[in-house]
């Protein structure tokens, strides 16, 4: 099993995946055969890890999702985990959980204020009545591609929604809408960043340098009369594609380098550096918040698509995390970029095209990381390692402390 060609299979027929596998000379098999690398959908992964499936992965098999990735990728669970993480840090008295004068967390203000509906409805109403002129955005927890999202300015709009029994069956999250986003050329945009996580305990996360900004096709209009026009407010490509102004040569997508150039030219170098540092910080904290609840199966790795919006004060806000970021390409540049991202993912996860071996996770070299950079590697973080060493010598435990 250790020799021979790497066998791969996939549930998604995407060019970015198939061309990468074929370029490496790996052998395609079906999911019923013995595979080494499986790029699966989330449904398949749930099935594989369900107790009645009885399928044990051997040491040469890797899978592209963690069993309970939904802790991070469902909007309501992500918010729940972040809130719990903040409360825990607060109880510990950690300096990370410091709060400012207005009661907001200084360093852990990762997401806009969010409530789960219908469970937190009363708390939400209290908050709404305290700030009556703010706008809120309603999103279904499990949906993607901008489906079912609408903006709320009055409680009566919510009452209308709650009467619709079909909508009430699904859980929704309602969060404060960022009505002053950072505009470029008068248009609203959001950022998509790719983060590869190979393990949660210890946390090993790599962020790709190849992210992109998705622009709305229509100029941003902050007035309330525009709240019905989703082309102004939602940046999802699957939505913007249907606008009359959409163009599939550039696809409304900008490379992150252009964003950096724009911010640095107009707001200065410190502001640009701080913005990108803050984005790294937000991503890292979101990963740390689910670190303890994730099932850290060593056969798993995952590529998350982080959606981040920047507001006018250059503060990044985490909007959501996608477990299956879209691998279809809308433009030529897009296709090249997604191909490179997957190429580098496999260069880190299966270094040198060897058979994947979960017993010896190595540290990827600079060349293997390609366009990825280390976001956080707990094994290399000197402070954490020293702490673990100290604890180990104190309790004289010989078994591994990474559980």
């Amino acid at each position, binding site marked *: 099993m250790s020799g021979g060609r790497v066998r791969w299979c996939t549930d998604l027929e995407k060019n970015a995946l198939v061309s990468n596998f074929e370029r490496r000379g790996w052998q395609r098999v079906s999911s019923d055969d013995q595979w080494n690398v499986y790029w699966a959908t989330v449904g398949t992964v749930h099935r594989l890890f369900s107790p009645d499936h009885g399928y044990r992965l051997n040491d040469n098999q890797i899978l592209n999702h963690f069993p309970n990735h939904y802790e991070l990728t469902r909007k309501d669970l992500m918010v729940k985990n972040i809130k719990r993480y903040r409360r825990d840090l607060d109880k510990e008295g950690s300096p990370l959980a410091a709060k400012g004068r207005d009661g907001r967390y200084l360093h852990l203000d990762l997401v806009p204020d969010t409530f789960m509906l219908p469970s937190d409805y009363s708390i939400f109403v209290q908050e709404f009545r305290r700030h009556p002129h703010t706008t809120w955005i309603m999103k279904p927890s499990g949906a993607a591609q901008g489906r079912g999202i609408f903006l709320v300015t009055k409680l009566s709009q919510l009452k209308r929604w709650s009467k619709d029994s079909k909508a009430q069956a699904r859980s929704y999250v309602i969060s404060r809408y960022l009505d002053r986003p950072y505009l*470029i*050329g*008068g*248009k609203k945009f959001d950022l998509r960043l790719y983060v590869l996580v190979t393990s949660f305990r210890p946390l090993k996360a790599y962020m790709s*340098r190849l992210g992109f900004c998705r*622009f709305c096709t229509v*100029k941003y209009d902050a007035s309330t009369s525009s709240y019905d026009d989703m082309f102004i407010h939602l940046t999802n490509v699957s939505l913007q594609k249907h606008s009359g102004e959409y*163009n599939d*040569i*550039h*696809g*409304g*997508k*900008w*490379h992150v*380098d*252009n964003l950096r*150039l*724009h911010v*640095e*030219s*107009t*707001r*200065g*170098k*410190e502001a*640009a550096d701080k913005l990108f540092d803050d984005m790294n910080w937000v991503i890292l904290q979101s990963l740390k918040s689910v670190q303890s609840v994730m099932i850290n199966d060593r056969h798993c790795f995952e590529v998350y698509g982080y959606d981040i919006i920047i507001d006018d004060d250059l503060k990044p806000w985490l909007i959501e995390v996608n477990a299956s970021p879209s691998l279809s390409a809308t*433009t030529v*540049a897009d296709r090249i970029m997604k191909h490179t991202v997957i190429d580098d993912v496999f260069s880190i996860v299966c270094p040198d095209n060897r058979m994947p071996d979960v017993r010896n996770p190595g*540290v*990827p*070299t*600079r*060349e293997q*990381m*390609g*366009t990825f*950079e*280390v976001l956080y*590697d707990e094994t*290399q973080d000197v402070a954490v390692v020293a702490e673990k060493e100290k604890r180990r010598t104190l309790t004289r435990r010989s078994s591994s402390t990474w559980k």
Partner: protein
Amino acid sequence: MADDDSSTGSAVSSDGGCRPMDVMFLRLLVEKAVLAKGASAGINSISTSKRSLPSTGAAKHDTDPMAMCREAIQEYLRHTAMKHSLQQQKAWIQPPVLGDVELDFFQAARQAWHRKIDCRLNLIITEHHMPLTLPSTSPNSATLPSREVFVDRTRPEPLKTSMFVYDHQDLLREYLALRNPNMREDAYAPLEFAGPRFATPSLSALRSLLHDLNPSLPQEAKIRISRRCWTQYNASPNQPSQATAAPFVGGKHKPSLPNTNHCLCPTLATHAMPYITSGCPVAQRATLWYMATCGADPNDYALKYDELWHEIRQVRRPVDHLLAADAKYQTNLDDNYFVFYDVILEVMIALIRDPALSSEYGCTSLGADVVPNGIVPFRGLCLFVAPLAFIYPRTPQLYRVFVKLYTRYFRLLHTLNEYPNGIARLSQTFLDLMQVRLPHLLLHLKGLGVNPLEIAFPWMFQAFSGYLLPEQVLLLWDRIIGFDTLHVLPLLSFALFAFRQRALAVARTKRDVEFVMADLRSIAVVPLMQYALFARDIATAA
């Protein structure tokens, strides 16, 4: 140097104490002077050089920072032996004198060319029944549309977005057809490629002109190190991939200006030019370009801009639609500039309809109604505005800088003119460089039936905007402004051919050649220009 003595003297003693911004800028120049001195003396740390600075003056200078700065500036100017005297730098503020060469065969060709494009413009207008003057207020509303509404309503209709009056192919054809009647055809074995002969600067002349590109001086450049090079640099894992290689610093060798639009003392503005020649740090480019091009006039241009737009909004003209067609076409194709469509269109309409500029350009025969400024919109005009949209978020400033850059440089690129910086001379410089330094390559291309000018001309026509990444275009334009010359364009074109000569040498058809030279997205401008100027073995680099 008596002249610059008085000018720096006035800078320092103009108003009682210097404003904080002026002090900061003087400090910048001091540090640059010190670095330049340090580079030549082999000292790398600023602190040690700074300690040696006060020794140039009397003990009194230790206590007088202004005098110290003045000394340093004069030292710096002496050190770089600036051929461009301060008068020339002041020329930015006065209208440019573009050369006293007037060749009559050129003039005849130019008039024929003007007639051609007038004809084409006329055809477009009559075919689409575009009214020459259309009041922009509808009969039942008395108020003028606002600027945003006016720009929004400027649509390419009834034209198609692919409609244009002329583009670089047309101009190239005109240029190649030019023949100097004084020259015997066999007197000089011409490359069948070129238009009329001019004296052009040789590589060594360019080298002394562009001396600040010397690799021993720290430059602003953005390069990305490829995966293979990492092993050469012996980088350890977990290092950021944008670590800078030795001579290219990302703004680290220049202390940063606070990012404001303060006005500086006007004489200090003339010192911005030498500062720009080694590239501007990204964060300061806005201020530096504004200072270099517009002098440092007070910031009330917003009012003038509004007045200008008040004039423009009254009436709609057919050129507006042509501009909209060009902007739509270019921004649809380009994945860097599509965001700025509205800004670009606004600035271009202001340029074409600005009555203050009509004295600059020879009016075409169609008269001021159709072509208000003598500028006929052509395919690619909006690409000159696009990179500036990254730097200036506010349109009045953007417009002002763009007008200065256009008047001084860009308009020489798309008209038939014989000025020293004009496209005809630039093309000739390019071909001469190719012939002198890369003769084998040129012969090979000639054998394939490829005219390298056909490939390089579109690049130079657009000043590389739309071909390179925006960041690289801005770095290139830094050098254009800093050295006050457009000759970096043929230099870069030549450097590109030299860089890819190995791939070109194995090309078998014209399409192969076009394919090799098609994609410029991965090009880093500064190292290439340095390679072309300072590499010892440019001709035998294969």
